[in-house]
Structures are given as structure tokens and as C-alpha cells.
């Protein structure tokens, strides 16, 4: 039987999330300020992305403490880490190839879609979690969060789209939909946690 986590287990998630954001910011600054070569850039981006691993571990400890760590959730966490690493790798390869090889035609189409593979892997992980979660209450909470995320995305995209149409706000690329969706899901879970 695994050791019973204590209340302290709940707090490192936020700390690791902040550390992850900080690491991504620092990695971005280093990449822009210094010429590290392709290997150095890739190493630093993968290192920053790999900080999702301690986040997942802390989240699992917290979930175990809350009594809602299911096998489906464990699989989801591992798929999300793999998806985020795949996304970083795909993004790096696409940008590197675009800058250095001047691709055209089908290769350019393929490279442009490369970062989407990792992002779509994360979306697939979310979908599989909803399908595989056997605990009906946890599944309900997941579905509620996903609906909140979808609603928030539709509202923000609609408002932003019209503001952009009238040149009041800058253009936002369409790929921002997934980060907005994920952040909205996070907000939904925080609200749910606060209500509990």
C-alpha cells in the first residue's frame, strides 16, 4: 500500500507550475539572447518542458491525498507529459527547418503541421481521459470542466474576433485556442476546488 500523503502534498503543484513558467521564460530569454546552436537550443527547450514531470508527480500526490487519483488519470498525466515533449520537439524542428532549409510545397505544409501533432496528442489525451475514466463522479467533474473550457473559449474567441475586426486589439493566432482552453479548464478546477 502506498504511503498516505499529508496535507503538505497539495502545495507543491502550484510551486512547480510557477517554476515551470519561470523556466520557460528563462529558456526563451536565453534562446533569444545567446546563440546556442541547434543542439543547445533544443536541449534548453526540452529541459524547460521536462519540468512538466515534477508538476505531474506533485499533482498525483495531491490527487492521491484528495482521493481522486484513478488509473485513467495516471495514464492521462503520462500522455500529457509525452504530448508536451512532442510539441516542444515538433515546434523546434519546424522552426529550425523553416529558418535554415527554406522549405516549400508539401515539406512546408508538413513542417507547419509538425507542432500541431504534439498539441493534438494532448487534446487526444483529454478525450481518452473522458472515455477511460471509470469513476462516474470524477468523469462528471471532467466533463463539467471541459464544458466550462469550451464555453470560455467560445466567449473569448467571439469577443476577441470582433474587437480584432475593428482593429482594437492585435491579431492572435488560431493555435492559441488550445492554451486558452487548457487555462479555462484550470480555472474551472480551481473554482470547483474553492467551492468544495
Amino acid at each position, binding site marked *: 500500500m502506498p504511503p498516505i500523503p499529508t496535507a503538505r502534498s497539495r502545495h507543491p503543484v502550484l510551486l512547480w507550475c510557477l517554476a515551470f513558467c519561470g523556466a520557460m521564460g528563462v529558456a526563451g530569454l536565453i534562446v533569444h539572447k545567446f546563440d546556442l546552436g541547434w543542439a543547445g537550443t533544443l536541449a534548453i527547450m526540452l529541459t524547460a518542458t521536462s519540468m512538466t514531470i515534477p508538476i505531474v508527480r506533485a499533482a498525483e500526490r495531491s490527487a492521491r491525498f*484528495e*482521493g*481522486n*487519483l*484513478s488509473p485513467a488519470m495516471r495514464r492521462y498525466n503520462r500522455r500529457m507529459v509525452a504530448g508536451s515533449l512532442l510539441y516542444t520537439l515538433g515546434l523546434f524542428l519546424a522552426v529550425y527547418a523553416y529558418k535554415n532549409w527554406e522549405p516549400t510545397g508539401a515539406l512546408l505544409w508538413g513542417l507547419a503541421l509538425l507542432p500541431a501533432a504534439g498539441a493534438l496528442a494532448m487534446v487526444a489525451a483529454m478525450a481518452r481521459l473522458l472515455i477511460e475514466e*471509470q*469513476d*462516474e*463522479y*470524477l468523469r*462528471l467533474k471532467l466533463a463539467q470542466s471541459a464544458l466550462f473550457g469550451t464555453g470560455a473559449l467560445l466567449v473569448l474567441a467571439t469577443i476577441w474576433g470582433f474587437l480584432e475586426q475593428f482593429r482594437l486589439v492585435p491579431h492572435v493566432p488560431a493555435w492559441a485556442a488550445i492554451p486558452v482552453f487548457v487555462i479555462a479548464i484550470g480555472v474551472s478546477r480551481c473554482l470547483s476546488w474553492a467551492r468544495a
Partner: protein
Amino acid sequence: MKNRLKLLRAERDWSQGELATRLGISRQSVNAIETGKYDPSLPLAFRIADLFALQIEDIFLRDEEGAGE
């Protein structure tokens, strides 16, 4: 919908975690059902009733009946 789950669990000296394990659900689900935040599906209600060797209506009560605890 109110229920007597907490009382039945206490009678057997089970923790929420122990009941959750016996039912094959999360402790959070047990807590949500006990506190009335979540009404279980019919299959889960049958599993709970089977575990306590009771009828569903002996555990889950109509709102007007009240839990009595």
C-alpha cells in the same frame, strides 16, 4: 437526494477510503455522495445497496423524507 451512507459506513467502522475501495470508486466520490453533492447513477446505487445488503430505498431517501441523521 439525501442518503444514509455516512451512518451505514460508520456502523461498520469503515473510512471513506475503505468504502471507496470496496465500491471501486474514488474517496472523493464517496464524500460527494455522503454530503449530497452528487447523486449516484442507478448502477452505482445498486452496487452500494448490494455492499450493505440493503434495498436502494433503504439507503437513498426522497428529499421530503429526510435523512434523519
